[in-house]
Each structure stands twice: as structure tokens, then as C-alpha cells.
């Protein structure tokens, strides 16, 4: 426990350690160190860093916290699957109109009811968000749908493709080709880490800036 105590004391700002480190470790050596004390030292070291720590420490600490936070979030998210179908399009101008009709509240609600999915405004918005329609090459489009259940992903992709074909009045037809059977969407851990790093560092800059302004106002 004493090794842990010495390690935790290193979390205090350098000027503080120059003044109090020997006294504090002397006290810990004499009085002992429990897990309660470890949390106590950790909490106070953090408070001391806020009060006296360098701006660089803030930026680095919050950037690391940002990376850890986003990665934990990514790992805790359920696996999502994606499926897609390829469609022939005779008239590209009609795709927008057909997509609007196929993704209308009524059509999506019908799909949800058919596969016993949760309905409602939020679910409709989520289904729209999880559906993408993109041009692969002239005359060929790919419709993609993402969700947490592979079986549902395949069925919903087919159902939306079917609605698109009906809504296009013959301008869109099925190729019968499934571009992708349901497969897990690999989350981009690197992108998440970069976002966490940038977000955390930006947070650190804001905290350090606020602290600087606060100190300047006090002077």
C-alpha cells in the first residue's frame, strides 16, 4: 500500500510536491495507508491540480479521459449489423420521390408492424437514420439498412427495397442481387479515440482558459 501511496502523491502538482511530499509520505509511513486514504489522496490531488496544476496537465489529463470515455462507450454499445440490396434505376430523378414515399411514416410503420418492431415517432426517425440509399454507378443504386438484429436487418432491407420499387412506378427494379448478407458493422475505434482525444483536449483548453480568466479577475 505504501508504494501505491507514493505513486498517488506523484499526481499532485510539482510545486506542491516540492513543499509537502516528504511531510505527507512521512505521515503515511507513520499512520498507515488504507484504501479509503488512497481515494482521499486521489480526490485531493485532482483538486490540487485544478487549483495549482499546469495547463498542459489539464489538457493531457482530459484528452486521456476523452479517449478512455469514448472507447468505453464504443465497447459498451451493442453490435450492429448491416445488410444491403442492389437496385436497377431507369430514371435517377425518380429516386428521391420514391425514397420519400418508401420512407414515409405510413410505409415505415407498416414495415415495423410486419416484423413486430417497436413503432412510434422515435423508432421511425431511427429507421430513417439507419437507412441509406446511394448510387453505386449510373443506373445502379444500393440500399443499406443497419440494426442490432441480423435477421431483422435482412428482412427490413428487403421490405424497404420492395417499397421503393412499388413507390417508383416502374422506374426502379430489383436486380435480385443481395450486395451484403447481414454482417457486423465494425466500429471505428481509432476514429472514436481521435474524437475523444480532440474533445478532451478542447475541454482541457476551456478549463485551463477559464481558470486563467478567473485568476486574472482575482488579481
Amino acid at each position, binding site marked *: 500500500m505504501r508504494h501505491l*501511496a507514493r505513486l498517488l502523491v506523484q499526481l499532485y502538482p510539482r510545486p*506542491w510536491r516540492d513543499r*509537502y511530499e*516528504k*511531510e*505527507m*509520505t*512521512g*505521515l*503515511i*509511513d*507513520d*499512520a498507515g*495507508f488504507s484504501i*479509503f*486514504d488512497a*481515494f*482521499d*489522496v*486521489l*480526490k*485531493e*490531488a485532482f*483538486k*490540487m491540480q485544478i487549483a495549482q496544476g499546469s495547463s498542459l496537465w489539464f489538457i493531457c489529463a482530459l484528452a486521456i479521459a476523452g479517449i478512455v470515455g469514448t472507447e468505453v462507450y464504443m465497447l459498451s454499445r451493442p453490435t450492429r449489423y448491416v445488410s444491403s440490396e442492389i437496385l436497377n434505376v431507369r430514371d435517377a430523378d425518380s429516386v428521391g420521390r420514391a425514397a420519400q414515399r418508401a420512407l414515409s411514416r405510413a410505409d415505415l410503420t407498416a414495415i415495423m408492424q410486419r416484423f413486430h418492431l417497436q413503432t412510434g415517432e422515435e423508432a421511425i426517425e431511427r429507421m430513417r437514420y439507419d437507412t441509406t440509399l446511394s448510387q453505386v454507378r449510373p443506373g445502379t443504386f444500393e440500399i443499406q439498412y443497419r440494426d442490432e438484429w441480423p435477421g431483422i436487418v435482412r428482412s427490413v432491407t428487403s421490405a424497404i427495397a420492395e417499397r421503393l420499387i412499388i413507390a417508383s412506378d416502374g422506374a426502379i427494379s430489383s436486380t435480385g442481387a443481395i450486395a451484403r448478407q447481414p454482417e457486423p458493422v465494425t466500429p471505428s475505434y481509432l476514429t472514436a479515440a481521435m474524437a475523444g482525444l480532440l474533445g478532451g483536449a478542447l475541454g482541457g483548453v476551456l478549463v485551463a482558459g477559464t481558470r486563467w480568466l478567473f485568476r486574472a479577475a482575482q488579481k
Partner: protein
Amino acid sequence: MAFAGVRLGPGTLYGAITRLETRGWIRALPGDERRRPYRLTAAGRKQLREQLAELDRVVKAGQQRLHRP
């Protein structure tokens, strides 16, 4: 570590010592680097007196409340 019946962790204790010394209410006396005694300064004594007077007022108000029918 306990002070006046309150358990203090080393972090809390040294957080308090840092604040008291920064405000000029205590002063470290020469001594062993690992066991340093502290003494109240004149400003610290004044502050302590004011704090005790304030606490005394709170205690008296509480006792009056208790004895009121």
C-alpha cells in the same frame, strides 16, 4: 488520522494545511522534513477566534431552540 473525533485522510489533512498556510493562518516551524510542526500565526489566531465566536452563536441558538417549550 483523527482530529477532534473526525477521521481525516492524508489528502484531506494536507489539503487543509495547504489552504491554511496559503492564507497565512499557520506557519511551518523548523524541524525534520518528514515531521514538521505548525504554529498558528496572529492572523490565524484572529480567524480562529472569529470562527469559534460564530460557532458559539450557532450553539447558543441551537440550545435556545431545544429549551423553548
